[in-house]
């Protein structure tokens, strides 16, 4: 399966999004939260993200979902430190994008297909 890493400035947000994704997915998926700093502050930590990427990687690729600002910079730094090409940051809303992808990874290993679904969640009408 494609791995998913959820990056937020808040560890609670990242873990909460992972909880929802696990709930909506029909089977166990490789997903991990990498939110907050290691000393419990609001922020992001490239090393946590790097560790999360390595732990969800099953060999088919990893997608990173981010909230904003330093989450993107830290995720890019983590990818650079790993020096690998199987990881991508997805331009999608954090909650909706992760939920859509959590379902899609159980259906396909095609990373482009999962990214497409995540992108589409950007345009989802709620009302």
């Amino acid at each position: 399966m494609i791995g998913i890493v959820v990056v937020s400035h808040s560890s609670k947000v990242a873990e909460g999004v992972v909880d929802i994704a696990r709930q909506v997915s029909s089977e166990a998926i490789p997903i991990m939260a990498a939110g907050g700093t290691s000393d419990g502050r609001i922020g992001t930590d490239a090393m946590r993200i790097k560790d999360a990427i390595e732990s969800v990687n099953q060999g088919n690729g990893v997608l990173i979902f981010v909230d904003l600002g330093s989450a993107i910079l830290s995720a890019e730094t983590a990818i650079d430190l790993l020096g690998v090409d199987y990881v991508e940051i997805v331009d999608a809303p954090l909650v909706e994008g992760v939920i859509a992808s959590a379902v899609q990874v159980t259906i396909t290993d095609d990373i482009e297909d999962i990214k497409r679904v995540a992108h589409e969640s950007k345009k989802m009408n709620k009302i």
Partner: protein
Amino acid sequence: MITSKLLLKSLNNMQAVIAENKEYLTELDAKIGDADHGINMNKGFKAVKAKLEDAGEDSCDKILKTVAMTLISTVGGASGPLYGTAFLKAAGVVEGDSISDENLVEVFSAAIGGVQLRGKAEQGEKTMLDALIPAYNAFKEAIENGEVLEDALGKSVEAAADGVEYTKTIVASKGRASYLGERTLGHQDPGATSSYLLLKALYETVSED
């Protein structure tokens, strides 16, 4: 020339100047950002100091790499990956137990390259680059004109200070401050300010040596 001993002393002084200016940087950030720059930088440099004391490294590349990895993992805000990548790229152009003046020009250039790679910003966007780029240009020119390191760094710090002043006159288009647009006018950029402070600490360390 900067020996590894002088480099370590400079980094300790950088930690001290960031600690002294923690509140000041945070106040600047409160006006146009999320009021955490001083706190984050202080966390990062305190961790750097502790890590360097433990590591006992004596090669400049390893020292710079330790600084990079520590900032990347402890700062928490955007300045972590930005300064972290700067130090990481700097480490990549250094070898052994000293940095010659000419090599320091390369180090400076590589560090700015790291900030640009990570932040995707240009000069004039109210970021640390508005202090760093003029500081680099002044430093490079002085070294190429055969000036001694202390004088070259002095000119570099002056250019960085001017760069910080310049950030008051421009509107932010990168990062959290960009949400405020025109309202950032008149405020100096906290990132440019911390860059100036780090350079000033380096200059003062070299002057005292």
